[in-house]
């Protein structure tokens, strides 16, 4: 197992900076997820750590030792690719032991490791079959087995679940989470799916435009986003965002006629001159019967259900906001909507960065 450190890592393709001065430490045995939209540099960073992509500048250290000049095969890393990379002409068992044979392990050692991995992954008679006949989910499980069989220092996964059906994806997510905790191998996982990141990661590295936006545990990333991008990218459905314009006795929401009382906003925001944008998650927006202490009166435009949860949406100026409440059964004018003050976060609308939130200070 190894501790992975990236120091001012940059990867450039001609003028385009795919990875721009990234600094990160992945501790031994930790499960870190690189999360971000397509083209944010997360896969390139992973390939640089794997040795499949040479870093333009900066250092990659395994347990303190610089490995930039080692080839991928010398780095004792294992990788699972997005589109299944099993050898179609070899059986499942031969696929799994391929890395051991390639490195000249002895026959007995290979047999022992194969049984160990087959037991962990509950691979029974599939071992004799060929990849072509197996569903995508099982194929990725085999790719994972091939990666784990030589207990690498670092396990790298490049969006391994994105090409699999939704149903198997959840199955594999559970399997992966359980396996990683049991083996304790240092793992770096790349995905654009924030649900996967939230459910698998010890720590999430949120990336955008080739740079790191925020690094934190899933819980903190959800409740304490450090920017508008982070707030909107994490959480489904995404966070409602409204401009706050200071008016006499409070703050006006966007260009609507709704005014929030002054005390809902923390002092550091109130007396700062910068324009403020307020974020509140739909889970913190509820329907109430009589006007609440912190709440607004709006016209509910649409009501629909997502699984067991009931959503309602209303308009604030020209932006549409959403709330989640079991009672959202019908649309209509003059409905009272309560906002949970602890759930509010405030951003500087120019830089997009976070200002102190009501509960904790940044």
């Amino acid at each position, binding site marked *: 197992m190894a501790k992975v450190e990236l120091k001012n890592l940059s990867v450039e393709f001609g003028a385009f900076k795919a990875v721009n001065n990234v600094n990160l430490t992945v501790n031994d045995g930790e499960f870190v997820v690189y999360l971000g939209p397509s083209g944010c540099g997360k896969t390139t960073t992973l390939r640089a750590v794997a040795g499949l992509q040479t870093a333009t500048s900066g250092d990659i250290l395994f347990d303190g030792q610089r490995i930039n000049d080692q080839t991928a095969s010398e780095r004792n890393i294992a990788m699972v690719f997005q589109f299944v990379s099993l050898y179609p002409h070899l059986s499942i068992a031969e696929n799994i032991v391929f890395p051991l044979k390639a490195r000249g392990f002895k026959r007995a050692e290979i047999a022992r490791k194969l049984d160990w991995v087959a037991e962990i992954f509950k691979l029974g008679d599939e071992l004799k079959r060929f990849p072509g006949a197996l569903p995508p989910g099982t194929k990725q499980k085999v790719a994972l087995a091939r990666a784990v069989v030589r207990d690498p220092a670092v396990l790298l996964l490049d969006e391994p679940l994105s090409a699999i059906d939704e149903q198997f994806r959840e199955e594999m997510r*559970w399997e992966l989470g359980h396996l990683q905790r049991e083996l304790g191998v240092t793992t770096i996982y790349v995905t*654009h799916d924030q649900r996967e990141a939230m459910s*698998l990661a010890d720590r999430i590295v949120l990336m955008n435009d080739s740079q790191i936006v925020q690094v934190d545990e*899933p819980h903190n990333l959800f409740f304490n986003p450090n920017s508008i991008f982070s707030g909107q990218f994490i959480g489904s459905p995404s966070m409602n965002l409204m401009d706050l314009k200071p008016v006499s006795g409070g703050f006006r929401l966007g260009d609507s006629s709704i005014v929030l009382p002054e005390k809902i906003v923390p002092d550091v925001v109130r007396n700062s001159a910068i324009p403020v944008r307020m974020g509140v998650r739909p889970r913190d927006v509820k329907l109430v019967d009589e006007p609440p202490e912190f709440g607004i009166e709006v016209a509910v435009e649409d009501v629909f*259900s*997502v699984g*067991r949860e009931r959503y309602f949406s209303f308009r604030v100026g020209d932006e549409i906001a959403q709330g989640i409440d079991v009672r959202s059964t019908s649309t209509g004018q003059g409905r009272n909507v309560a906002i949970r003050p602890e759930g509010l976060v405030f951003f500087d609308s120019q830089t997009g960065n976070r200002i102190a939130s009501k509960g904790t200070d940044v």
Partner: protein
Amino acid sequence: MTNTMLRLQGLKKAYKGKPALRGLDLEVRHNEIFALLGPTGAGKSSTIQAIAGLLDIDEGDVFLNGHNVTELDPSSRDLSIVFEGFNLLPMLNVFDNIAFALRSPTYRETEQEITRRVQHTAELLRISQHLDRDVDTLSGGEKQRVAIARALVRQPSMFLLDEPLSSLDLKLREGLRSELRQIHQEQNSTMLYATHDYHGAISIADRIGIINNGRILQSGTIEEIFARPANAFVGRLIGSPAMAFFDARIDGDELAIKGCDQRLPIAQFDKVAAHGTEIELGVWPEDIELVNTSDAGSNPASVYAVDNRGYESAAQIQFPGGVFRKVLADGMTLQQGEHCGFRLPKGAGFLFDKASGNRVSHAERGI
């Protein structure tokens, strides 16, 4: 004018001996968004192609607004279609792609009318600034918006969407889905939305049809499906996490469950049609109660894996009879490997025949 816009009756189709549709029946009502939910290869695309007339079906009939259109050429079925990958004709720019159908012999309009409607639809989908761009310079999200605009501009009697969003990033998908819902309200059109993504289906559809190897297992609102899952497969597909299953057998007037000490009275399941055949008990995870090992009537189990999703966390519970997953109540935290207990509710639960998967108990269950 019946209130059903589309009715499929006994559709059968086999490709070189491999059956894709095995007697599929389906009904979609006017002004409804109907989601066709099923795994890859269940027959979603074949169904959509059969409705559009792009597929010569072996047996069965297609009714559009009460008229039998089975023998009708696709060009006169007044439908529009959005595919998963390829949608836009590379030799036309964005404007001409959207206006494509309005220049066809069947749906021809005057050029002024075409310009007016294309600009209006482009505004609706916020792509007005791309109208004269070449198609291959657009991003994935923009391409799908243009494809949807092309489908909308003609105001067809029905939209067919074959996994239109599954190649896009998660964020883009959610954005476009809510926009599709809004457009549907404003246009009072009928939409058939095929997908393998459970979250996608429930967040857009009024009613859902579960399809598996060429047959519709069940169709209804999400509440109806939760209340009366017609088949074990439906339970495995619906819900996040999906339904928990326990092997069981009828023992006198009680139900013995493998790996659990707890036994449930048969009476709670109303009439039970199956006797002697292998059955399994299906329970929605929300109805299973996690308790301490010491509590009365609790079945011993341990935590196989934990999944915290920020706003809530879920655990995979392992017990002698198998495994199930459950969202943890607020504030409750569990560690991997920790011991715990669970209780099966008296009221909820359904019995399914293990072989066919069909439900054999008739107890209703409101949410």
